């Protein structure tokens, strides 16, 4: 069975010569992203503390960087890049749709419960 790998990342901007080389390339990318996360987490720079859409900008940066890491782990380590479109969509969109739905509902509800407490209607009920 032939195993063909797509050897380019960043939409063809970076092309590797072999699969092994691509693996090391992705490792470097993931390490850089993790290092940025850790440095930001320790320094907590002033500019990143502004609230954006109900959360600190820093937290949004963390979440986006996490999704970037997840993308490269799935696409290159788990070889999602080489699977057919059908399989890829089946796995990715099912997961993303259900997870977003769940997160929306639970965070909305959590925020509501917080408001009920802080507005003082109920002190401790549940």
């Amino acid at each position, binding site marked *: *069975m032939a*195993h063909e790998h797509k050897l380019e990342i960043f939409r063809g901007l970076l092309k590797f010569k072999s*699969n*092994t080389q691509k*693996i*090391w390339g992705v*490792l470097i990318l*993931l*390490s850089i992203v*993790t290092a940025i*996360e*850790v440095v930001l*987490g*320790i320094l907590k720079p002033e500019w990143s*503390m502004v609230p954006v859409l109900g959360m600190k900008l820093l*937290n949004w940066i*963390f*979440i986006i*960087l*996490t999704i970037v*890491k*997840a993308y490269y*782990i*799935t696409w*290159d*380590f*788990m*070889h999602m890049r080489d*699977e*057919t479109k*059908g*399989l890829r969509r*089946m*796995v990715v969109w*099912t*997961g993303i749709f*259900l*997870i977003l739905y*769940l*997160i929306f509902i*639970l*965070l909305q*509800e*959590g*925020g509501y*419960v*917080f408001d009920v*407490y*802080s507005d003082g209607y109920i002190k*401790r009920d549940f």
Partner: protein
Amino acid sequence: MSTAVAEGKTWGGGNQPLQASYGKMMMWFFIVSDALTFSGFLAAYGFSRFKFIDSWPIADEVFTHFPFLHGVDAPMYYVAFMTFVLIMSSVTMVLAVDAGHHMNKAKVTLYMFLTIIGGLIFVGSQAWEWNTFIKGDYGAIQTEGGNILQFGKYVEQDGEQVFKRVAVRDIAIPATSKERVQHERKNGLWYVSEGTLPSYTMDEVIHGLQANKDVLVRTQIINEAGEKTVLSREESINQIMKNGKTVVEGANLHVNEYGSPLFADFFFFITGFHGFHVFSGVVINIIIFFNVLLGTYERRGSYEMVEKVGLYWHFVDLVWVFVFTFFYLV
């Protein structure tokens, strides 16, 4: 081609509509369902956090330890190390899969071995992390309502007043005679037992607080600057005397010296569930490793089994990336 032949081709078996073997596709479907389980946990964590958004523990202040560096304030360095170990073992796994494609038994063996070592280092680190969290650090006072009051004082550091935590054991003045001993089956009612008593009583802590004039109390409430609120000296003594109920050291499923017990519950549950995945991943990897050694896949002519456990192993890494973000960073 007649319809009968076409039908035979489509429905007669041996067909791979998604160009993936049955086993690989089922591994993907398992991963989707497992991903939903984990996101259920993380979303529940988010729910509880949003519910107590103004009093949730700050992770940087909870996970500050590094092995062999006692007393050094090192927030996040150790988890960063753990993350790197797991990513590294993911890399050796994908290298093993790649070597499998080239039917290179020696290389598959080596990379599988390195993957297992990486997994073991990670599980060990997690055990250490749990141990540190359970043992606790400074201790705190729990109030009647279940809130946490911590101690600390302002010290001069580089010309600035910085709030430094003070441990309960450093301020408490032990009473000369203990009036309360732990109830045991052998010296009391044989059918009831009692958990371990706190190391200090409230009276000992109150005496200690009165004797140490510079010690202040810090509450769970996060102020506008994103820091926990520090009370005035008067208010500190008042709070401890009026509301303090018991001394708490470390964390378990009922109490947590760092703040909301829910934080500890979710920490144990989610990292525990993830650690269980890593552990089972290591066991599966070991089984496959021995199969590689015995030449099972060499004889089968395909190392696809390595690819399948590889998918699972990468998934474990993927989950950790999210756990790392939502427990330690955000």
